[in-house]
């Protein structure tokens, strides 16, 4: 079985990510609601025709951050599991950059946890996207990262509508 949290240079498989949390811990009890979110490289960004993305990351720290996000989810929605795989390296249009799977007994928690997870990844995962388009390239600079920023957690929780 695939690990719950992983970084990979290879193509991501949503099914494998989801399978890593299909059963509740220590039981054969399936979770009633399973969500899979996949982020996919788009061909256009604003006016640019994107050629490819290069993702760079600090791998051991990404895994720690993913574990932290998983723990935040378990605390906010007890019994709700989260698995995350992020791709690094060169990605072409249509390829998956991230897969987030969540599973819970009830759908409300599965949805909220999934949305919370992607917001937190964008806030604190040490990953950088370098966009190559026709005529140039640009580093995408998103969130100023801080693991214990309570305002950021609150924004993620609000996006999750929780």
């Amino acid at each position, binding site marked *: 079985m695939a690990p719950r949290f992983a970084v990979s240079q290879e193509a991501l498989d949503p099914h494998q990510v989801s399978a890593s949390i299909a059963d509740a811990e220590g039981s054969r009890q399936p979770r009633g609601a399973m969500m899979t979110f996949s*982020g996919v490289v788009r061909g256009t960004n604003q006016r640019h025709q994107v050629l490819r993305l290069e*993702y*760079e*990351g*600090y791998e*051991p*720290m*990404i895994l*720690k951050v993913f574990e932290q996000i998983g723990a935040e989810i378990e605390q906010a929605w007890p019994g709700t599991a989260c698995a995350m795989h*992020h791709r690094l390296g060169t990605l072409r249009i249509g390829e998956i*950059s*991230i897969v987030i799977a969540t599973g819970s007994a009830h759908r409300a928690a599965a949805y909220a946890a999934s949305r919370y997870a*992607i917001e937190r*990844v*964008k*806030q*604190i*995962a*040490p*990953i*950088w*996207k*370098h966009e190559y388009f026709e005529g140039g390239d640009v*580093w*995408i*600079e*998103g*969130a*100023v*990262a*801080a*693991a*214990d920023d309570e305002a950021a957690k609150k924004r993620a929780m609000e996006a999750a509508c929780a």
Partner: protein
Amino acid sequence: MRVTVRLFARLREIAGAETIAHDVPDGSSLADVWTSLSSTWPALAAFDRTVSGAINAEYARMSREVREGDDVAFLPPVSGG
């Protein structure tokens, strides 16, 4: 004392290296390490307000003291997902 400094994305490009063995005075904070790097690569100063620090692959405030042998990382604004 010596720490290992990791730089990522634009910071890595500015310094031209992803890992740097860097000597700093005892008692230096993450902020001190950053300032010291900026004196070598002035273009880093553009990130003074947005850089985040990590010690041994965990986020740390810029006021945190570094220790001999620490694995120090400076992170520009992130854009994963």
